[in-house]
């Protein structure tokens, strides 16, 4: 695609509900990153994929957070049993290859847990 696409753009979840956030990276991009951006803060790293391999998940805040990229393209970030502190914008970014320094960001999914 022309850019990184994320869906849904907005998601309201009741506390305790499971959610799934989707990221369509730019076609052919090898690297994919997920970030969490709380209100008034900068994005914070969650996890990184190189193709289908999840090479770094050190930023995932708890075992309720899970990410996958089974075919090395589309990625899904799943949050189980959502809590109010999970409310944030979730950003996805992709890079053409491992050696490429520029990351292209999607518009994000704004998750509100009520």
């Amino acid at each position, binding site marked *: 695609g022309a850019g*990184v696409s994320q869906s849904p753009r907005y998601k309201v979840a009741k506390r305790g509900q499971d959610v799934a956030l989707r990221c369509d990276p730019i076609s052919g991009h090898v*690297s994919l*990153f997920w*970030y969490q951006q709380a209100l*008034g*803060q*900068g*994005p*914070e*790293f969650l996890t*990184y994929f*190189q193709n289908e391999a999840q090479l*770094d998940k050190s*930023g995932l805040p708890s075992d309720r957070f899970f990410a996958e990229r089974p075919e090395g393209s589309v990625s899904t970030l799943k949050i189980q049993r959502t809590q109010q502190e999970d409310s944030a914008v979730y*950003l996805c*970014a992709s*890079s053409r290859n*491992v*050696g*490429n*320094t*520029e*990351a*292209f*960001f*999607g*518009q*994000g999914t704004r998750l509100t847990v009520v």
Partner: protein
Amino acid sequence: AQSVTQLDSQVPVFEEAPVELRCNYSSSVSVYLFWYVQYPNQGLQLLLKYLSGSTLVESINGFEAEFNKSQTSFHLRKPSVHISDTAEYFCAVRRQAGTALIFGKGTTLSVSS
């Protein structure tokens, strides 16, 4: 570990005035440096980056940033701002290609007439 400090959370300026958004980083290794801009309801867009070579880097819309290794700074400047420059600006570092970006908390630039 790397970290990024953006010293000003909000910078209000009048149109056509100069502006400087400050960014300092800490790292024990060489890093790549970036400025991203986020317009309302849009995703992050790369404004400019420093990888190596000339310490002064420029964007296509008049912004520039200078890498200062001794002061570990990468301040963003524009000699004359426009209303359309109103946005959130994020400074970021990356230790090497393929690793995650570490962002500052952002600076809100508000340009008024």
